[in-house]
């Protein structure tokens, strides 16, 4: 009998949640199209930056330097100028991304073993691009120095950097982006859906009707949180399928993923329940969940690296379930890690989710 009641409740919640075809469509959109769009568009390869050259020296050395800078596809030689003034106006109009100025006697100074400086101007309007461009210029001039000064014979001497990039050798953002979107879409839905489901009853006064039925608090609670969790867990699969079709392989244990996602969703629905207990209308609930979602979404490390945040915010990210979830699934899919490596994040996720879920239940019971 009790089981029948619970089934009835859950079925009703599903029906109510999915009745609006727009909502159904949006859930689908968020977990497939949006993921694909972000995965395809936001690879964020900084390449073909337009480089302007002012060569006052016109020696073999200065030409070699320019060749070195344009050897990879980060910079392409766009134009040559005779004065900085000309180049500046191009930079200002955005027609150039960077300018290199080689001083007179550059080659002669190097040949004499003296210090030679090279002026480089980078357009900093986009700090993101500029920091990559700057790092690249520093690297290339260092490697140029090496080649010039040590001569071809000594090329083999000295420190030989062997740089390897693990987990993502071609340095694309694609797979990480996909994982970030997968987590974010699940998070948004798992907060918004239960919050809306609970507040709607309050706002429309149907909660009163439920109170006079034999339904008990815990039954209603389970009835309210189960459908969003099921929907969000289920939406993992279209996402994974689409990613596979796109040629973004996700190799890792599916069971571990589902387990971690379940832990993660518990914390998300707790936020949803919490929002529902402190608001009375749907409008308030939507705005409040937005208010909570936003900071968590963007403190998750999926947009900007956590290491670059100030220390107090880094501490703040430790309590974000989204951060631990993204770290664990990127470990799972990108690094091929198993529970042996992932347990600190899984434990943190559990340590965050369990008290949150408990609190949300207590709050819910009190209001009931």
């Amino acid at each position, binding site marked *: 009998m009790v089981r029948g009641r619970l089934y009835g409740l859950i079925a009703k919640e599903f029906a109510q949640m999915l009745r609006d075809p727009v909502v159904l469509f949006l859930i689908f959109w968020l977990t497939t199209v949006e993921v694909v769009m972000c995965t395809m568009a936001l690879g964020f390869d900084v390449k073909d930056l337009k480089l302007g050259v002012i060569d006052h020296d016109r020696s073999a050395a200065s030409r070699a330097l320019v060749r070195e800078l344009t050897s990879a596809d980060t910079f392409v030689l766009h134009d040559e100028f005779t004065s900085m003034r000309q180049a500046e106006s191009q930079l200002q109009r955005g027609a150039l991304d960077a300018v290199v100025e080689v001083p007179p006697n550059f080659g002669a100074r190097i040949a004499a073993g003296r210090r030679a400086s090279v002026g480089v101007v980078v357009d900093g*309007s986009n700090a993101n691009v500029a920091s*990559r461009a700057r790092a690249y210029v520093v690297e290339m001039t260092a490697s140029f120095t090496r080649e010039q000064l040590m001569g071809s014979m000594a090329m083999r001497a000295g420190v030989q950097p062997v740089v390897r990039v*693990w987990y993502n050798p071609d340095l694309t953002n694609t797979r990480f982006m996909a994982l970030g979107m997968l987590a974010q879409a699940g998070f948004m839905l798992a907060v918004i859906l239960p919050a809306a489901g609970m507040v709607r009853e309050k706002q429309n006064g149907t909660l009163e009707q439920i109170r006079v039925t034999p339904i008990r608090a815990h039954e209603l609670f389970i009835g309210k949180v189960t459908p969003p969790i099921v929907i969000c867990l289920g939406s993992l699969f279209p996402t994974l399928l689409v990613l596979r079709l796109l040629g973004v392989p996700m190799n890792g244990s599916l069971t571990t993923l589902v387990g971690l996602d379940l832990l993660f969703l518990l914390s998300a629905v707790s936020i949803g329940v919490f929002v529902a207990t402190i608001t009375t209308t749907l409008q308030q609930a939507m705005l409040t969940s937005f208010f909570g979602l936003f900071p968590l979404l963007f403190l998750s490390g999926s947009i900007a690296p956590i290491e*670059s945040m100030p220390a107090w*915010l880094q501490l703040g990210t430790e309590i974000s379930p989204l951060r631990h979830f993204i770290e664990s699934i990127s470990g799972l899919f990108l690094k091929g890690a198993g529970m042996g490596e992932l347990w600190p994040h899984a434990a943190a996720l559990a340590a965050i989710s369990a008290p949150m879920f408990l609190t949300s239940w207590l709050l819910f019971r009190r209001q009931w």
Partner: protein
Amino acid sequence: MKLSRMLAFAHKEVLEIVRDPITVWIALFMPLVMLFLFGYALSFDVENAPLVIVDHDKSAASRSLSNQFLNTRYFRFAGAPEDERVAEHALMQGRARAVLSIPPGFGRRLSRGEAAPVEFLVDGTYASTASILSAYGRAIMYAFPSGTLLTPVQPEVRVWYNPQLRSRDFIVPGLFAVILMAFPPLLTALAVAREKELGAIAQIYASPLTKFEFIVGKLLPYVAIAALQLAIVLAAGFLWFKTPMHGSLALLAALGLVYVLCTVSIGLLVSTLVRTQVAAMLVTLIVTLMPSFLFSGFVYPVFTMPEFFQGYSARIPTMYFVNISRGIVMRGAGLAELWVNVAVLVVYTAVVLALATWLFKKRIA
């Protein structure tokens, strides 16, 4: 169209907003919270990446190389295990972003003038950080004194418009555009969807209120709130974050007003298409917030996207206001440089408003 009727409707809308303290509170504080979080949190400068050093050599040279790494602001020390596997484990767990591994005999090889390979392992999960770290790692190793007399070519890199490459100076002006796209449309869309969901819209259908009066009456209070949000974010951006302003504040504020008119209209357009508030919220997330954050050039430069998605970006007004805001604030640009963006924004607003009015079907009950 009667002015008094329209104003009465706008007045009703204002009352409804003011009587809901949670909504007012969120409308005014949320942009501020977002500005503060992002102003502090979003930094793309790579600093203090945890570096694990495995030094099998333990010579003066290997210690000196390790110090070269740790003396830059790009790396910080995160352990010196004896075993490569421990280091790789740290990389896998995310406790380290890079591993420097110096093989035995490194110092000896260097002093003999032989090639001394050193392995530098970078976690590629976050591509942008990884490429910067590997570039600096290589640069440090190339420049490492190798026994021969080495006089370096010194790159003197200057960064224009943002000399310290402070992400904040570039984030804050972009954030003006994102924040004003995130909140005003959401508020507006929820307001109309609420009337539909609660059935109050039927009363409006039954009233003599015309389509146009309804639209303008809805628009006015929300544009006012959005203008207030604009004032708040501008004040916080310039007074608190002390973002250097190279252009005209009046111009920025004026174009900001055009922009909020545009974003509120988008909210209105969304609300004509949906029936429930949950749908309104999800649609605004998808059509305003996510694209304005991801596709506007705010974080990911538009030119790095495939052409198809550059076209998608061009359909989002945020891109134009990001250009306008960054142009005015960072480069001191005026209308002469920005007129294309301004023109697109104005046309965009007009089209959205016309579409919203047209789609708002006034049924006669």
